[in-house]
């Protein structure tokens, strides 16, 4: 064979060898060829890899997807976003109240106040039957002797206090009440016994040992540590028996306690610390009974227990230390902790799927947990497959290599009338908005913000940019929760009206068609983050709408880290397009309370309204659902009136799904997969299965 033939033959053979491989690859129509088990495998296409598979540590949505399959929480949200027991079979909320014995004032009948007398009088009122509410609420009363000397819990802003010793207090005598439910207005309930004015004259400064006279800072700390009434709400979870982790170890109350400790361990840098900060203690009362005591009234508290529970036996400090030693890291690195453990890349939980394999930026594989307490899922394998590019993901889906992926709004229509694919949609709990920097003089007037909002045709954006994959929203709560006030009317699209408002505020159009006031034109920067096609499109649409109004808007898109670090966190921006993903509780403290407007805090637009602050605080103390609803709707109306954001829409989550995938009911009937009422498309996932051929519905 001469050189020439060789040179020609080599590439031809190589190409032929590569191309013939085509005949071995399964196509959409023959997915089961050579692999019957394909029907028992669910392959999901995701655009980014998960980061850390630990319910206590993860902060990204991809990790969250896997974690919910591998771990169970004590509770979760049911079809209608109400709490439902999982690892906990039931739970009840009670309360412990500590009332300071205020001797400065007598009882209504003039008798002097002593601890024993308070106890006796409350018990008498309870048994008298004249106060049925008190009778039902108060379970027991106990006197706590004062006198113990304790240090004042005190966080100083100034390092030098000019005090030789740390401030200390002598505890006053108190009365401890056990209540059958949380009663924020306990003094009102006890008013017939203690009098309406009880506690009004109580001065905690009396109990300060050193120094004698408290300054402003110390007084605040005193008031916090020695309130007239200290509320300690208690939640008791009764745990499910006979639940085992994937390694066979039984699940007990110790695991719940450990999970809490892992969150609060500073070394672990858990992003959930602030959720669990109001907890005073978690006790494993019995192997299947957990008692959680809170430091103060905090109504959203119970919702955090939807978080997955870690296996204590695999992650106790001594086990972690052993792992560090095995990896040759002992001594060299004290910081080795839960965050560094290999557990986060090979998690063990109690969930319906057990973890099997993780190849970075490629796949995560899970397999069915055969002895899942709620019955094993139908799928045997679950693949989480990473495909970053939206177009190739779609092509891969069409060729049958993935079963489902989350659609961009513009992709939805392509699958809706298909005989091979279907779409599955649920309204998400987030919303997208334009946030104005309320601190700037330009935006400080609500009328200006309202005018800007009126110049945007939001319905048109939903129709053309979102392709109908979203709903108009008017306030800070998810639409499917009770907290949302459907009575609030959205801003009308009225550019002329918007112009009138601005003209009434002294703006007038100049020769270039731009609004001008005192020689300055109405100009600002609108920014958003990189990587979100919809926000980028809205950027252009809004820029154009405002230009028509006579406002000059400069737009820019920044990469996430730069966006947060340089603009949002330090408050150096004019207006942003962003979105929030909300929880199901009515607590809005971090996003809307005026104390949360500092650097790196979430009220980055600097919204400030005393009425809103008051309601936000009241919501955290209110345990009665009807009252919460009333308060949250009032808050919704206040925020909608102030328009610190222009609320745009709540986006829907829509997934493409192979038509061969169906939902199997308990009775064995099949039906098309459906999202829950609350918008969770994977709510019924454990009942899904794939058929050989697409059914006729």
């Amino acid at each position, binding site marked *: 064979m001469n050189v020439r033939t060789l040179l020609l033959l080599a590439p031809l053979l190589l190409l032929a060898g590569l191309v013939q491989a085509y005949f071995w690859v399964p196509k959409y129509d023959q997915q089961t060829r050579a692999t019957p088990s394909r029907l028992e495998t669910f392959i999901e296409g995701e655009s980014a890899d998960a980061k850390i598979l630990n319910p206590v540590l993860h902060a990204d949505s991809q990790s969250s997807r896997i974690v919910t399959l591998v771990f169970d929480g004590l509770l979760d949200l049911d079809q209608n976003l109400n709490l439902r027991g999982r690892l906990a079979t039931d739970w009840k909320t009670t309360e412990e109240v500590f009332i300071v014995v205020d001797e400065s004032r007598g009882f209504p009948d003039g008798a002097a106040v002593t601890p024993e007398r308070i106890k006796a009088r409350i018990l008498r009122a309870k048994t008298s039957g004249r106060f049925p509410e008190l009778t039902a609420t108060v379970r027991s009363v106990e006197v706590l002797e004062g006198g113990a000397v304790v240090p004042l819990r005190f966080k100083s802003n100034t390092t030098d206090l000019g005090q030789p010793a740390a401030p200390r207090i002598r505890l006053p005598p108190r009365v401890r009440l056990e209540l059958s439910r949380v009663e924020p207005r306990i003094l009102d309930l006890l008013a017939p016994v203690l009098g309406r004015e009880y506690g009004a004259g109580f001065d905690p400064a009396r109990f300060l040992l050193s120094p004698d006279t408290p300054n402003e800072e110390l007084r605040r700390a005193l008031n916090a540590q020695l309130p007239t009434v200290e509320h300690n709400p208690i939640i008791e979870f009764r745990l499910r028996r006979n639940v085992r982790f994937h390694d066979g170890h039984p699940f007990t109350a110790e695991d719940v306690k450990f999970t809490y400790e892992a969150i609060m361990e500073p070394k672990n840098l858990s992003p959930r610390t602030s959720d669990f900060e109001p907890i005073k203690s978690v006790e494993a009362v019995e192997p299947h009974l957990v008692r959680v005591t809170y430091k103060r009234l905090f109504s959203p508290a119970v919702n955090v227990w939807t978080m997955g529970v870690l296996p204590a036996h695999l992650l106790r400090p001594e086990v972690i230390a052993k792992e560090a030693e095995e990896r040759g890291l002992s001594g060299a690195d004290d910081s080795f902790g839960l965050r560094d453990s290999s557990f986060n890349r090979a998690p063990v939980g109690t969930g319906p799927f057990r973890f099997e394999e993780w190849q970075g930026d490629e796949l995560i594989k899970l397999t069915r947990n055969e002895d899942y307490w709620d019955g094993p899922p139908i799928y045997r394998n679950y693949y989480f497959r990473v495909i970053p590019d939206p177009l190739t993901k779609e092509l891969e889906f069409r060729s049958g290599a993935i079963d489902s992926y989350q659609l961009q709004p513009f992709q939805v229509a392509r699958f809706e009338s298909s005989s091979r694919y279907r779409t599955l949609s649920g309204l998400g709990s987030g919303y997208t908005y334009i946030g104005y920097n309320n601190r700037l003089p330009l935006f400080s007037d609500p009328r200006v913000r309202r005018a800007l909002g009126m110049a945007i045709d939001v319905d*048109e954006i939903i129709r*053309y940019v979102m392709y109908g994959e979203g709903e108009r929203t008017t306030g800070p709560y998810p639409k499917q929760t009770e907290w949302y006030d459907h009575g609030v009317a959205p801003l009308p699209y009225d550019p002329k009206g918007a112009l009138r408002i601005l003209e009434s505020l002294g703006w007038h159009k100049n020769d270039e068609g731009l609004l001008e006031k005192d020689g300055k034109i109405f100009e600002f920067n609108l920014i958003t983050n990189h990587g979100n096609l919809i926000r980028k*499109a809205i950027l252009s649409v809004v820029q154009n709408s405002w230009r028509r109004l006579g406002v000059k808007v400069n737009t820019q898109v920044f990469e996430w880290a730069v966006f947060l670090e340089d603009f949002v966190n330090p408050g150096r921006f004019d207006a942003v397009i962003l979105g929030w993903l909300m929880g199901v509780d009515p607590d809005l403290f971090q996003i809307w309370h005026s104390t949360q407007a500092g650097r790196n805090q979430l009220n980055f637009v600097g919204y400030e309204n005393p009425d809103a602050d008051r309601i936000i605080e009241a919501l955290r103390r209110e345990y009665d659902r009807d009252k919460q609803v009333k308060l949250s709707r009032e808050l919704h109306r206040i925020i909608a009136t102030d328009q610190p954001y222009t609320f745009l829409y709540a986006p829907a989550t829509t997934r493409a799904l192979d038509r061969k995938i169906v939902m199997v009911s308990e009775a064995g009937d099949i039906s098309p997969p459906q999202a829950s009422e609350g918008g969770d498309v994977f709510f019924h996932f454990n009942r899904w299965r794939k058929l050989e051929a697409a059914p006729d519905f």
Partner: protein
Amino acid sequence: MYVTTDVDTDIEVTGRSSLDEFWVTFRRDRLALIGFVVLVGLALLALAGKAFTEWWVLFDPAVVRLSDRLLPPLTEASSVLSADKRPAFGIYFLGTDDLGRDVFARMLQGSFVSLSIGFVAVGIAMSIGVALGGISGYYGESKFLGLSVDNLIMRFTDVMLCFPTFFLILTVVALLPPSIYNIMIVIGLTGWMTTARFVRAEFLSLKEQDFVLAAKAMGLPERRIIFFHMLPNAMAPVLVTATVSVATAILTESALSFLGFGVQPPDATWGNILSDGKNFIFDAPWLFFIPGSAILVVVLAFNLVGEGMRESLNPKLRRR
């Protein structure tokens, strides 16, 4: 599949090619000639783009008409549009994009932006390359901190060559605020190394040539020797590299746009029109094919002209 066209290795220029001779050879190369014509056309288009989208707004690339989105080329604008939203001549020559913006207007605006990215970036790269190469070649023996200047500059060049260019550009562009100037500067700062190397070689050999020695003997000032005698003679290969580098810079910008780090809105470039258009490839293929082919044609023209210039300047190849 981003490739640096590192093709200036076989240039041999003696510095004596007259312009006429060059032009005669160049004209014989039909591909290069076509490329040249395309580039002239492109230059005019870019100027027109600047003129008609900014100075005298005939085609406004920023007007959003959501009701008219994703229309194919040569569609008439719908009649419901208000007068100030209607496109020039009431027709979308190249269709509309996902927000109903006129693709023709955007391509027109983009032609100027894309070209200026190419030219400015290459301008920066060539200036640095020529300066460092020239200093290294001419003043190479002088000492700085105990090391010869030549050694310093060339080692620095080696260091820069060690970086994976595209990865470095991507890192810096992703970390910096995304302005069009940053992109130009970063592309420029990472593209000067080969130029520096061969300018140095050119200067080294020119320094020994009779006309330079003569000029020195006549006592002409150094500045004059460098700028009037040596530099023009070293310019030919620089021009060839520059031509090819403009093509590379345009491709780099489009690759950055694909990853989302290219020029940001509202500035349109062909690269970001293309990368936005790819999402609508099934609904509106023109959004993908028009900018894609435009980039292909222009980059091809630059490359062909570069190739033609190289062949015309290369005495060995010219001896047919």
